[in-house]
């Protein structure tokens, strides 16, 4: 397997606050990787750096062999054409009906006419368990779970090679969480896509991840196969996956220095 997404020594600061302190991560082609970490650990900043929404201060990010840091907008758009993204709250466009949201990319780059766009929307919606009756509904009329599903349909509509999921189950009830996890797993398996998910929901981790990485204080301090999570003796990982208030992770100030470890 070859590295589809590779981060090497990526740093990012906002003013005096150093959020990423040298992130190293390699995601193989076709692999489903989940990055876990507490609030403020730098997960979203890392994801936005990979997506080109933030520019890292230093380090390199390769997507499918192309160094993406510092790319021009036009070159970046070519990389993005092969990427799908499910945002935390769906980020559906309020002013557009569901079908235009789902087929947005094809309509913008003129690869789809109106009829083909509606057909793509019907197909993508069916893949996430939604019917064609939603095509002309506006996002404001959908529940949170349905918005996530439409967001997932939009992410997979162009059949991308890489899909990112930002906290895909946050704010959902346990049943809808399971539904979304299964949809992600099934869609990814069907497409054969490489995926990176950031979350702090351990149910999602166990359901969708081949490999898991723990981000703490701006560094990946543990990474390994998801099967090895429970066997690891890393105190930081153990505290996080078991949801313990006491341990090396200082919940208030998060000041304890961690050493980098990995699974077998």
């Amino acid at each position, binding site marked *: 397997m070859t590295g589809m997404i590779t981060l090497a020594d990526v740093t990012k600061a906002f003013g005096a606050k150093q959020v990423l302190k040298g992130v190293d991560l390699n995601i193989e082609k076709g692999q489903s990787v989940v990055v876990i970490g507490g609030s403020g650990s730098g997960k979203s900043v890392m994801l936005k750096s990979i*997506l080109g*929404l933030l520019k890292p201060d230093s380090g390199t990010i390769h997507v499918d062999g192309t160094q993406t840091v510092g790319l021009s907008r036009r070159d970046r758009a*070519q990389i*993005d*054409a092969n*990427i799908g993204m499910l*945002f935390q709250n769906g*980020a*559906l466009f*309020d002013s557009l009906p569901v079908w235009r949201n789902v087929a947005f990319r094809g309509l913008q780059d003129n690869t789809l006419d109106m009829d083909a766009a509606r057909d793509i929307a019907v197909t993508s919606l069916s893949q996430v368990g939604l019917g064609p009756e939603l095509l002309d509904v506006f996002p404001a009329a959908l529940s949170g779970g349905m918005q996530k599903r439409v967001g997932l349909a939009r992410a997979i509509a162009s059949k991308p090679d890489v899909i990112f999921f930002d906290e895909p189950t946050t704010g959902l009830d346990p049943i809808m969480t399971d539904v979304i996890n299964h949809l992600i797993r099934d869609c990814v398996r069907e497409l054969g896509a490489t995926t990176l998910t950031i979350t702090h929901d351990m149910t999602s981790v166990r359901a969708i991840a081949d490999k898991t990485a723990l981000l703490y204080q701006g560094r990946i301090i543990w990474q390994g196969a998801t099967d090895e999570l429970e066997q690891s003796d890393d105190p930081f990982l153990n505290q996080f996956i078991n949801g313990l208030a006491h341990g090396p992770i200082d919940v208030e100030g998060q000041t304890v220095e961690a050493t980098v470890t990995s699974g077998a």
Partner: protein
Amino acid sequence: MQAIATIGSFFLGFFFQTGLLTLFIVRAVKALVTPPVYARLIGQQIMRIGYYSLPVVALTSFFTGGALAIQIYYGGNQFNSEAIVSSIVALGITRELGPVLGGLMVAGRVSAAIAAEIGTMRVTEQIDALTTLSTDPFKYLVAPRVIAATLCMPVLALVADIIGVMGGFVVGTQSFGFNAAIYVQQTVNFLQPDDVISGLIKAAVFGFIIAIMGCYHGYHSKGGAQGVGRATTNAVVASSILILAANYLMTSLLFSA
């Protein structure tokens, strides 16, 4: 020492914002002149910015024209110059009050709406979503609004001119007993094309300011609902002040020769 730090911080913030706004305008102008052009979105914005602003601009200019006629009549009365009402109303409305008051009303209505809409898109990650879908937010969001506002404002100013003069006509003929035919004749004779054209040029600039300020404050909003509220207020305040400042500058340039 604290005072120096405060002053330094103020100037740093001022220069940072000025630089940010300059870069925003450069990127927006570049988006205006490079493809793709979203004709459907421009059409939508022309309806929202132009068509739906007609009532508020028309009402404002009608009452302003009427009030202007009253002021000029009683002011001129002291010098036995009541006859100048029609010409001064026409001049005041077309050169200044039509475009400026129209601009301020549209600033309140449109700049706020643009900032709120784009600000909400920012805090709900819709702008990030646009970028990840290979769509430039400046071309998709900013350019259609700037084009629509710059095109619509001269039309709105022309409507304001006509209805403002009509307001003066109604007051002049109904309250002060002016002969209707003579009032119209004096207005037409006195008014020069340059008076109207200068107002329309000003209005186009005001339209650009209104859309840019709305987009800029919305695009850079942060901090949830409170941030969107702040962006909306800042957009209206900034566009109103800039309209008045630009009006002074353009009046100096257009009428100093």
